[in-house]
């Protein structure tokens, strides 16, 4: 194989200054720590999401309550519901945004402030997306009863909503990070 002499990355060749790049790396570590905390506190996150979902359903006129990580809604004179499993939690939907954001920071190509703002918006979007999903499932149970409502909304509509939302979110997230004007042609 030929020996290739590529210009070695110089400190000045970094797109951020050394100090700024160190700050970016610290921000990346903080983001990874946040991710770890989210995973460690998964049950608390699920309880919080169930509380929020029940509150939103009540706001929309559907009798709803939370028990542990489950959301219960009024249907046919009784209460029925579903539990938020680990795989359905926002903590896991937020994972790709935090991971990609941390990686982008490590490269030194994006500013920490912009990256944190993008991650915050993306995670906020993931929370709303998940609430939309829970709302659809809860609403369907309320309207059509548990058997039909849950069966028809949980797997198909719920997954479609989260997939379409995540596809749009990830494309927008990478687009927003890529628009950081730091990198300019020399």
């Amino acid at each position, binding site marked *: *194989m*030929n*020996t*290739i*002499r*590529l*210009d070695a*990355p110089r400190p000045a*060749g*970094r*797109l951020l200054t050394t100090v700024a790049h160190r700050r970016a790396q610290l921000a990346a570590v903080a983001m990874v720590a946040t991710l770890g905390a989210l995973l460690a506190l998964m049950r608390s996150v699920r309880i919080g999401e169930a509380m929020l979902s029940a509150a939103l359903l009540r706001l929309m006129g559907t009798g709803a309550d939370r028990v542990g990580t489950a959301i219960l809604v009024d249907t046919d004179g009784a209460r029925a519901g579903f539990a938020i*499993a*680990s*795989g359905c939690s926002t903590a*896991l939907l937020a*994972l*790709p945004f935090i991971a990609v954001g941390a990686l*982008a920071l490590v*490269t*030194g*190509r*994006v500013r920490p402030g912009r990256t944190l703002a993008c991650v915050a918006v993306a995670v906020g979007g993931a929370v709303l997306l998940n609430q939309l999903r829970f709302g659809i499932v809860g609403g369907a149970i309320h309207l059509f009863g548990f058997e039909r409502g*849950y*069966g*028809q909304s*949980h*797997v*198909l*509509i719920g*997954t*479609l909503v989260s*997939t379409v939302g*995540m*596809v*749009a979110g*990830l*494309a927008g997230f*990478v*687009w927003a*990070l*890529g*628009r*950081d004007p*730091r*990198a*300019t*042609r*020399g």
Partner: protein
Amino acid sequence: MLVSLNLLAFALCVVFLAYVAVICISYLRLAPPPPGEVDTFGWHVVVPCLDEEAVIGTTLHRLLAAVPTAHLWCVDDASSDRTAAIVAEIAAEDPRVHLLRRTLPDARQGKGEALNHAWRAISAWEAGTRDRSRVIVGVVDADGELDAGALPTLASDRYFGDPTIGAVQVAVRIANRSTGERPAPRTPWRRRLLDLQDLEFVGPIAAMQLLRERTGSVAMGGNGQLSRLSVLDEIAERAGTPWHGALLEDFELGVHVLLAGHRTAYCHHVQVAQEGLPTVGALIRQRSRWAQGAMQCRRYLRPVLASRHIPNAAAFEIAYFLLLPWIQVVGSIVYAASYLVLFGYLAGTAGGPAGWIASGQWGVLPLVAVGGLGPFVIWGVIYRARVEPSLTRRQAVALGVANWLYSALHHVAIWWAVGRVLTRRRDWKKTARLAAPAPSPAPQPTPIP
């Protein structure tokens, strides 16, 4: 365990669907550029040759007619057949054809070395004659057919008419597809395999390149790449030679063009046609070589990410491409395991598949159709709409479904490449040409919308 598998499959699916959605949008927004002034440039086309007696004569005659202002440089890499003799005969009749002979032990060191040999010869030929940024050096494979209308389009302001553009890659089509000029194989499934390669080149690969037009990271391909001589000189000054030793020497060149501070562009309105591979074995071997080449190019990850010349979006896209083989390795395990789990549920639920569907899990099936098949089937539909309107709707959908099965070959190829990386093997046997194409008039430009 199942939750992790489910999440990983979902994450990979989201990334894949996001990518397909973005490249589809880029593909459907295409418009042709006005032609440029061909005579303000000097044009050279390099044709690397190794045992090409079956095709080289026809290829040169076609090129002479298609690009009448260009010089053709055939680099014979110590062929064991009559390749050099055929080129010498044509060169004796037409001064635009040049034969460059490489002999063993220096020959057969890979396509990159043959191209470097041609670059030295063209450099010497053009020494002191004109502005080297107005000299364009193209590469066409020995079985390649370049459009007759190629040069005016390439000289336009969107391509070499723009001084910031350092290199351009043109669209690639499969010449021996069912609807092509060259004879297609008689066996139906072989014809289908060639059609699928054509769909792939003119569909998702073209769409990826059009997305890269927007991000600023267009990749060079092995066939139909063109660069300014001044840019090749600059790369040689920085890195020894323009082309290097990776199995994806074409991709490497594109990265070097970007690292040197120039832009790369993709021209979908000019096409170069090449022979497709009619057997699954040959196709998997080719794709393994590509995958191994991409793995070798990981050494460019750091320079790309550290480069001031490469915009963020381009750097991220190139990083994604360089990591793609490893993502595919993980994906091949995750997707296979996901399907196994699905079949396990179908078989293990009381009442069999019907019982499983009745238990409320029926929603998984449309999800598999939309998320699993959809991203592949859509290319059959787009192919009919934009490239091959002679296909019926049913044929387009069937081609799209076949495209899904075809994608499975990449999973086999990626593991072959992993095996070769682990055993440190870098040698690749050259794919043999099928047969001499029937002589025909100079190719006419086929409009690609």
